């Protein structure tokens, strides 16, 4: 039995050990999740979590409570413009047989679908895989339905032309479904980023945006390891505005005007 702070710290440590998420970043979220539960309850939760399997509902609930699913279609438009103009033509040249793209930390799938839209628009044959730790988000992503709710919804930054990728759902106003053929080209799976991706393909494009910010130093190191493991010379990596790789140097900025678009130079060894 300890103070609530002890339990909080224990749970944060468990989360970091299992998922590499940074206690500093998630502290508030964890506080919010634990709410006003008693010290005893918190300590009990910590005990239960320490022995429970990953699939245990306690863990699942905790994950859902901790993860920040901030995502929307065509997020970071300036970066995506460069991807459309420079990266996709490059990928097309290098991979005439088709492109494998991985959206690491895809939350409810908006960004994975955005990649699929862009590739479709560029006339590229692509398979996009979207992974996230949250099973609920992945289920939602697979569903491919997005509500145009007031406020910060999934469509807040979507260009008007992209509406052609959606169809209305009868009987559900303000909810839109991603076109079935595009939905079929995107695969979603639950995946813990600190573990290697089960899909052994070499990815041509990896989008890991606003994901590394939630990881601790050790967590980020493991995530980078797995990103490198799924990459090869020529792989393009997209990072969020405040993110940077710290433990691998195989990736280099494609151009200095867009440092968050990186690539693995052809000549560089792992």
């Amino acid at each position, binding site marked *: 039995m300890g103070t609530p702070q002890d339990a909080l710290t224990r749970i944060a440590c468990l989360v970091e050990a299992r998922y590499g998420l940074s206690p500093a970043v998630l502290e508030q979220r964890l506080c919010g999740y634990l709410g006003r539960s008693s010290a005893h309850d918190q300590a009990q939760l910590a005990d239960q979590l320490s022995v429970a399997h990953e699939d245990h509902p306690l863990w699942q609930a905790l994950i859902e409570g901790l993860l920040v699913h901030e995502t929307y279609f065509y997020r970071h438009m300036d970066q995506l413009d460069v991807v459309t103009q420079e990266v996709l033509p490059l990928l097309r040249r290098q991979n005439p047989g088709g492109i494998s793209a991985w959206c690491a930390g895809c939350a409810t799938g908006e960004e994975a679908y955005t990649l699929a839209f862009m590739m479709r628009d560029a006339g590229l044959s692509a398979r996009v895989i979207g992974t996230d730790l949250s099973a609920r988000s992945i289920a939602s992503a697979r569903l491919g339905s997005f509500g145009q709710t*007031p406020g910060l919804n999934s469509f807040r930054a979507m260009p008007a032309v992209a509406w052609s990728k959606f169809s209305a759902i009868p009987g559900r106003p303000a909810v839109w479904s991603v076109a079935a053929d595009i939905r079929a080209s995107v695969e979603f799976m639950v995946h813990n980023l600190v573990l290697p991706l089960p899909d052994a393909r070499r990815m041509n494009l990896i989008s890991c945006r*606003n994901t590394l910010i939630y990881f601790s130093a050790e967590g980020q190191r493991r995530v980078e390891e797995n990103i490198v493991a799924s990459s090869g010379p020529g792989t393009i990596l997209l990072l969020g505005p405040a993110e940077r790789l710290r433990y691998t140097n195989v990736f280099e900025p494609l151009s200095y005007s867009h440092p968050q678009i990186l690539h693995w130079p052809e000549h560089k060894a792992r």
Partner: protein
Amino acid sequence: MFQSMKIRDKLLLPVVLLIFTMIASSYLLVQQLTQANSAFEGLIRTQLQARYLAKDITAQLSEAGRVANLMLLQHERADYKMTSERLQGVLDLIPPRRDELTGLDPEAVAAIEKVTAAHNAMTGALKPTLDLKNANDFDGATAYWAANARSSLVPALTAMGETADRAAKRANESVINQIASTNERIRYLVIALGLGILVVSGLALLIILRGVVAPLNELTNKIKLLSSGNGNFEVPQATRGDELGAMGKALLIFKGNAEKIRIAMTAEAVTIEIGDVITKAAENDLTVRVDLSDKTGFLKNIGVAINQLLERSNATLRDINLKTRQVASAVAEASTAVGQVSVGARSQNTAVAQVSQALAESALAIRAVSGSANKASEKGITAAHLVERGQMSAEELFNIVEKITQNSRKISQITQVIAGIANRTHILSLNAAIEAARAGEHGKGFVVVSQEVGKLAESAAQNAQQITDIVEQATADAAAGRTASLEVKKTMDSIAGEVSQTSQMIQSIAVAMEEQQAMVTQIEGNLGDIRGIASGNAVAAEEITATMIQLSQLATEQRQQVETFKTS
């Protein structure tokens, strides 16, 4: 002209001069020695001749004496005659020697006179002696010889011996003197020659020093200067016509080359210095500067350019440092703010949930209120009836109060009568008391009666007063009651009006409540939207917080990176 002489000539000149001096001095010395020698030889020869002559004369004289003694001893005519001839022959030998000696030794005049005297005496005594001999007077002859000849022989011998000794002595002295004087002369000569050689040598040295060594030294010094890197000198020697001039000209060329080398070396040194500065700058020390005070030309331009570069880099980095700090603090602040927003959004979420719940509760409440309002409407009608009855009761109450007021007035009149009776009874009792006093002892009992009657009157008066007071109070109360009952009546009238109004209002409330319920349902829907918005805001704010933390870390890293540069 002197400067144009070759060094060989300059060296040869003193050597020739020296050799000439040596030869001259040797010649002089030899000459001097020869002179001294010949003078010495003459002197020695004269003295030795004189000595020889003196000795010879002594020997002849001695021989003459011995031969004369022999002659004197002989008695045979033929013997002494032959001996006398021999004596004559000896005597004849003396004069030429004596004359020669006279020429050689002027000082020997006295001695020579003695010799002459002895010679003369012996020559003069010879014939008489022989005559005596011939006359067989041998003793006479001996005596005669002894008397005339022998006596002068000894002084002559002595004189000659002295002369010979003196000549020997003089010869010795001459030798000594000659040697001494020769020595002296040679010494002076040697000294003079030495001085001469010294002067010549000095001169030669001077020539060498002035003409060769000094300019050589100067050139050497200048070469040394040059070798130490200082080319700041003139070479006047270069105008000379000799080898030194050639050396000077060569030195000028060296100087020119050295100047070029110096410039090259300076350039190298400056390049190294600038290289050091760049190295330090490369090691992140941007406070270093190229010292421009001793630089010229293109190296100075390079130094200026490097300094400008360093200055600008320094300023830029300082600026970046400042801005990074600013960014870091701004990000930290923004992070805090967004964190607060996030917390706020979350609590907003909670609050909206609570409001939503409250709203649901109030919908129930409104439903309850609506029901209550209907019930209230019914109760309002009942109330209207009740109020109507109240109205009647209030009227009755008014009438009763009215009657109480009238009765009070009657009681008040009665009380006034009682008060008048009591007053009169009191006067009666006073009169009775007076009368009892007048009756004296007999009236004593009546005094008691009168006193009691007085008391009774007083008590009656007091009671009457109390009744008056009570009745007055009752009258006032009745008046108030009347007013109140009037109020009640009025109120009842208005209540009756209001109850009917309330009843109407309650009915409109019931209608409003139904509308309200519909609105609450709509608000519930809106609240769901607000909840969604707040939730979205919270999520966005949380991601921004995480981004801010990352940014803050980046800013810190950048600042640390910038701080590895040493800036001023």
